[in-house]
């Protein structure tokens, strides 16, 4: 539920602001709004922030600021003014090769929902998702909410290696593993886009607050994009390495 934001210490070098206690787009947009509004008004000593679903962690430099001073600075941006329009955030299109060896859990997700693989693909690709958070591992983007017939529980025991580009379902959310890592989400497909690139700033294709839209491709198109790095279907924002 949504509540008045609460500020609490997270040790001696960070504070924690909680905007609510559940995963939903309204609360997440308040986190995003705080993140974006404060970025232009940072004072010396305010460090990086980690926005998440319904909270944000704000680092500060204890040489320059105390907890009280940092709280006072953050408090200015917590007024209950109406949300600025964040709907202008970009919709980033993501080509996905669903099923088969690229999405080994697609059949499980279909069976779990007493549905077909085709229907899961149609529904998964049929709506825009808000990226709630980027984290866990480099560039991992968690977004939602997926339609009820696409939802599926996480795996009982996580895989030790999930390939980069894998698209997964974790409960009500969908997400993309940007780099190879361990992971417990049900894998329904894979994108040939390179979603984490050390040479770029920012290194991550997705940022919290973006929107994502998936579209199905076949294996030939997957290989073509992988090799050429060029998509034919126009994304609204083109990522040069994608």
């Amino acid at each position, binding site marked *: 539920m949504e509540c008045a934001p609460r500020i609490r210490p997270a040790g001696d070098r960070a504070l924690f602001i909680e905007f609510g206690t559940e995963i939903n787009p309204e609360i997440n947009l308040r986190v995003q709004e705080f993140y974006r509004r404060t970025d232009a008004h940072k004072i010396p000593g305010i460090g990086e922030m980690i926005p998440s679903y319904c*909270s944000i962690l704000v680092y500060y430099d204890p040489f320059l600021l105390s907890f009280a001073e940092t709280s006072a600075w953050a408090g200015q941006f917590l007024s209950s003014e109406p949300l600025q329009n964040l709907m202008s955030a970009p919709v980033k299109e993501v080509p996905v090769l669903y099923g088969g060896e690229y999405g080994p859990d697609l059949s499980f997700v279909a069976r779990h929902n007493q549905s077909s693989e085709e229907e899961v693909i149609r529904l998964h690709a049929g709506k825009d998702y808000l990226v709630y958070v980027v984290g866990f591992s480099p560039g991992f983007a968690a977004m939602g909410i997926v339609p009820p017939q696409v939802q599926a529980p996480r795996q009982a025991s996580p895989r030790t290696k999930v390939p980069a580009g894998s698209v997964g379902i974790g409960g009500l959310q969908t997400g993309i593993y940007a780099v190879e890592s361990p992971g417990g989400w049900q894998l329904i497909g894979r994108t040939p886009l390179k979603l984490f690139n050390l040479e770029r700033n920012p290194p991550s294709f997705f940022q919290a607050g973006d929107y994502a839209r998936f579209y199905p491709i076949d294996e030939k198109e997957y290989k073509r994009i992988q090799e050429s790095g060029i998509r034919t279907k126009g994304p609204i924002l083109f990522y040069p390495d994608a």
Partner: protein
Amino acid sequence: MIEVLKPGLFTTVQDLGRWGYQSYGVGIAGALDPFALSAANLLVGNPENAAGLEITVQGPTLKFHRETTLAIVGADLDPILDGQSIPNRTCVLAPSASTLSFKARKSGVRAYLAVSGGIDVPLVMESRSTYLLGKFGGLDGRAIKAQDLIPMGDPPANYRKGVGRSFPEEFLPPYRKNPILRVVLGPFDEFFSQEGIRDFLSTPYTITAQSDRMGYRLQGIPITRRKKEELITCGLANGTIQVPPNGQPILLLVDRQTIGGYPVIATMIHADLSLVAQSAPGDELRFSAVSPDEGREAYIRLWGNLDRFKGLSFLRKL
């Protein structure tokens, strides 16, 4: 160049960490005992955030392909240069083609080796730190191995002048076995029962073998919950102490994931990170609660010692 003859148990290139990219899921990495690395750097005339080697428990054997000064701070692994014992926390001249090795662990866990000019691997996102999960930074994001050639930066012109200088012991963190760590309760202490918080603050927790740069899994009296609700995944500060359903706390360190979903009973203060970095599986940790302001004072006092040391060095030159 530094040639790796033997890699030791686990040695990585680290500076003070890759700050500024956690919102993209990139962890900070960096020295687990940042103060020891900085002190070693100052001894050889480097900036305090230059990259050095973090050496864990069993040291490597390294050959220097040019003359350099070096300093080792943190764990005492009994360093040997060309067959002769050399002192810790002291600037030592290592001639061209000399070999540094380590005899045995006497105290602590992680020793930091700084060389004049620093370790000069490429910057990745403004840091040279090895990030194991991301497989980048340092030497391709991995520990050093035999036959690696580790690049050294150009030393300052007067680098030999520092030879013989020591970092005063009283300026170091109060390293000891079974330390008491100061924590700030929260941000989710309300998830725990009064007994749970009392147990956490009054009984020892042993470091288990499942402990590394990501975090230390601890074992002790299980910490009981008051609220059974799950926490929504949130950003994690350095030194976060989270408690999974089994009640056994996990102390999260520099290679942690950027976000996580277990309730956080307390967060360690940064001044005491060094004490954790030098504690080994089997050691006991105790926790005592302080305010953020007390944590801040401890931080300013500890890191202020670097400036006090620089002041001493300046006086020495007069």
